[in-house]
């Protein structure tokens, strides 16, 4: 049976990131989550596996902390999971990530389709899917809004700025899906309970034969400074607040 891979990333929840007084950041205490759009990618992979008569496999490349994501990912429908457990993931750039994921795809064998999210909620780089395709030298289709299959062919609708393109490709292939693809249901209790019993394969960095040296060096990370007036009318009658607001906007000359 062929396998359909869902690539998902365990990311820090951006709403938990603390900004220190000197505009440096504290990301260490942020809770983890499956990157938002990757929930749609997992659902798309589960549906594609159904259509192709194959099995869906959730695949993630993360630090030891990402272990806690496996149950969550599996509760969303994949039959098994594959986890590249490597400290190197903390410093990985697009080049390293794509090579690690592509190496795992080769190890898993008999893969007909790799599904990525359109962009991860931390990087939103939108580069991993095409890069995996390049490493494997497989066809890639990005910005996918819907797919169907016809034998060994994949027919996808892509959303571009000014048009919708329907393209056809042969399997195996890599796709990056938009969140409009499906509505990624919240897993039910039964799915959550059975997730713990599903098989997980773990790879260590050394198992993959990949060069984990990143091509980019991060030299600084700082909070984006929001410099707004933040004059908030919160007390009193609505009519007064509206009057104050209109007066302020008139003064600003934006009416």
């Amino acid at each position, binding site marked *: 049976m062929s396998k359909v891979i869902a690539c998902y990333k365990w990311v820090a929840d951006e*709403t938990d990131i603390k900004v220190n007084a000197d505009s440096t950041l504290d990301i260490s205490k942020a809770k983890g989550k499956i990157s938002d759009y990757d929930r749609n990618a997992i659902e798309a992979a589960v549906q594609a596996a159904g259509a192709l008569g194959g099995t869906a496999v959730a695949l993630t490349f993360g630090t030891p902390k990402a272990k806690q994501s496996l149950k969550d990912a599996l509760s969303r429908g994949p039959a098994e999971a594959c986890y590249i457990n490597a400290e190197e993931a903390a410093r990985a750039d*697009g080049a390293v990530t794509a090579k690690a994921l592509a190496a795992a795809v080769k190890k898993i064998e008999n893969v007909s389709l790799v599904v990525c999210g359109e962009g991860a909620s931390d990087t939103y780089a939108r580069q991993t899917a095409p890069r995996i395709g*390049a490493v494997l030298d497989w*066809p*890639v289709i990005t910005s996918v809004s819907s797919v169907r299959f016809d034998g060994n062919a994949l027919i996808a609708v892509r959303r571009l700025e000014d048009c919708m393109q329907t393209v056809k490709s042969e399997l195996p292939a890599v796709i990056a899906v938009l969140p409009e693809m499906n509505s990624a249901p919240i897993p039910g209790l039964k799915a959550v309970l059975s997730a713990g019993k599903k098989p997980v394969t773990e790879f260590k960095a050394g198992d993959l034969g990949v060069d984990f040296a990143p091509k*980019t060096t991060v030299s600084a990370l700082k909070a984006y400074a929001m410099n707004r007036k933040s004059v908030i009318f919160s007390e009193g009658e609505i009519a007064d607040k509206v009057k104050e607001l209109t007066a302020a906007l008139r003064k600003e000359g934006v009416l």
Partner: protein
Amino acid sequence: MAGIYVYSDKKDLAAELVGFAKGCGKRAIVLTFDERAAKDLSNSGADKVCLLKGDSELVENYGKSIAHLLAEQGAELFVVGATVSGRDIAARVAGYLDCAMVSEASSITYTDGKLVTERMMYGGSVQQSEVLEGLCVVTVRAGKFEAISGAAEVTTLEISADTRTTLVERKDIVKEGADLSVAERIVCVGMALDKREDLQIAHDLAAVLGAEVGCTRGVAEEKHWLPVEQYIGMSGAVVKPKLYLSMGVSGQIQHVFGIRDSQIIVAVNTDPKAPIFKAADYGIVGDMYQVIPLLTKTLKGA
């Protein structure tokens, strides 16, 4: 030819990127698949315009060949317009070259011969600086650099395509709404809207303000109450109006990313702790169903 290679499927953006390359004091070589664009770009101040010709109508299919071309020519940098298809090609090229890539850089400079880039992370709350060495790939949105002018030689180059993916059909998206990226005033509706008909309160306010109506992602993608082109944010439209006024928008960072260049930001929200108030110049804590109609009435009366 060594230098900065430029590509965008939008020719104005390609011209801006030539402006960037020349501003760095480097040679600029433009790649294009479009004959008309090649002609127009022959006056972009580039050193050379390469009109690429091959067997596929899908530009993405040339990723591998472009990677070979860049390596062979000793390119220093491949700078690509950040559109759907530009991002795709850029990442394929980076993948085939196994080189560094920075997506949607907000700034690119050469410092001591090394390329230094800045970009947003975590939906726009964090700015990351990176240093890149060797041939690398960077994508850039429109409007970051100024186009210049000057004659360039145009040459034609045969290039091979990966034909495993073929185009079946292409349907233009009929834009139902206004182009928010150039709107002077925007009224933005959030998920607090109870039902589709209630959009009327936004349209009424927009009418007195002479504004366009935009929304957050959920209003377009989940509710389908406004066309997808009308949602604002990191994955939607990036806007820079004189006045942006939101109703029932919480102000999550991914949305705020799209409004940060607005001159004045106004928010109406029932929750005094809503993050939108930190991103706003003026705000009213209150129910939009009361505030907005009253605001419309007040402005009408004035």
